[in-house]
């Protein structure tokens, strides 16, 4: 059952983590890391989302089926992004610029 009552201090700790990560992502964005800026920003956002899902949304106490649903949602998004980029990345491979 998901009626597990989480102690308040866990939630406060989570909130603190999220604030720290927010500060970190802003700080990281001001430094020029080249192509890594995007990766870092998305990685931090992913961490934050993970923390929210795991603690606030109580997936850590959820049934396997709930976890599977979360995973499926993310997996399908990844499928869409990968197959989409398979087109956009390889359009230039013919040695011609693509112009749109």
């Amino acid at each position, binding site marked *: 059952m998901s009626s597990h009552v989480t102690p308040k201090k866990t939630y406060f700790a989570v909130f603190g983590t999220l604030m720290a990560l927010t500060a970190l992502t802003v700080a990281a964005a001001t430094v020029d890391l080249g192509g890594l800026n995007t990766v870092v920003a998305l990685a931090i956002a992913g961490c934050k989302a993970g923390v929210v899902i795991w603690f606030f949304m109580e997936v850590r106490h959820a049934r396997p089926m709930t976890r599977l649903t979360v995973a499926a949602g993310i997996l399908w998004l990844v499928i869409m992004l990968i197959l989409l980029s398979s087109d956009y990345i390889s359009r230039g491979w013919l040695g*011609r610029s693509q*112009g749109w």
Partner: protein
Amino acid sequence: MWTGFPLFPEAASTVAGGVDALYWFVIAISVFFSAGIFAAIFYFALRYSRKSLDEVPKPIHGSLALEITWSVIPFLITMVMFGWGTSLFFRNFHPPEGAMEIFVTGKQWMWKLQHPEGQREINELHVPVGRAVKLTMATEDVIHSFYIPAFRVKKDVVPGIYSSMWFEPTKPGKYHLFCAEYCGNQHSGMIGWVHVLSEPDYEAWLSGAPRGETMAQAGERLFQRLGCFTCHRADSPGRGPVLEGVFGSTVQLENGVKVVADEVYLRESILKPSAKTVAGYRTQMPTFQGQISEEGLMQVIAYIKSIARQERMNTPQ
């Protein structure tokens, strides 16, 4: 007018034979399998039809061996189809060297075709037999699709980019040209003919067809009229790159990337000058979006191409 009742389209290009061969291969496999399935169904339905009301046949749960067999065998067969089809597609994709070029503009609802020598046609295309023809295609409005069934070739013409395709006719004759992508009201009227002529007939047509200036000449006139020459010429250093010899060369962009200055790149640079600026130049060129038609663009590009060719001839290396 009774134009006959063809069952199979004419095969009039170098790629048509290959496409038809693959088609018959897949059809043969399909007929084999469907005949097998239909025969089994008929046989079972008759042989095992219900004899009495309380008849209860013995259950059969399944067979792993059978399941694997009828998964693996179709898989292998489809992979043969996939390999064959994909290699055919890739082979047919790249135009051969030295193909003659035609420029195509799709527009609701007509095809405009320009020959480099200056002949212009609408919904008609005259090409010689036995020579590869490369089409560079653009559209003024919506997506169209250039389709010649007898050649088994088709390509969408998408706004904002140049599409290209090629074919080499093998038989003189008159073939349908269709727009295959729905493009609005008169979509079904966006059709025409491809006339494949023997070499002498084609020469005769070339000399007989009304020709104004060549595409390059028309392009040069546009180049003047739009004022491009004020920046892009040898004696105005610093303002814009000199275009002599640019076409086909590799240019270095501001952000360090190297691109080949081809039709697509030139088109983009005219319409969105700031998108890919050549290293060493500031972006001060205005956009020509809306000021030049796709046809005009093709002419300007033909002009830039022609001065690249002259350049190469002048400096032999």
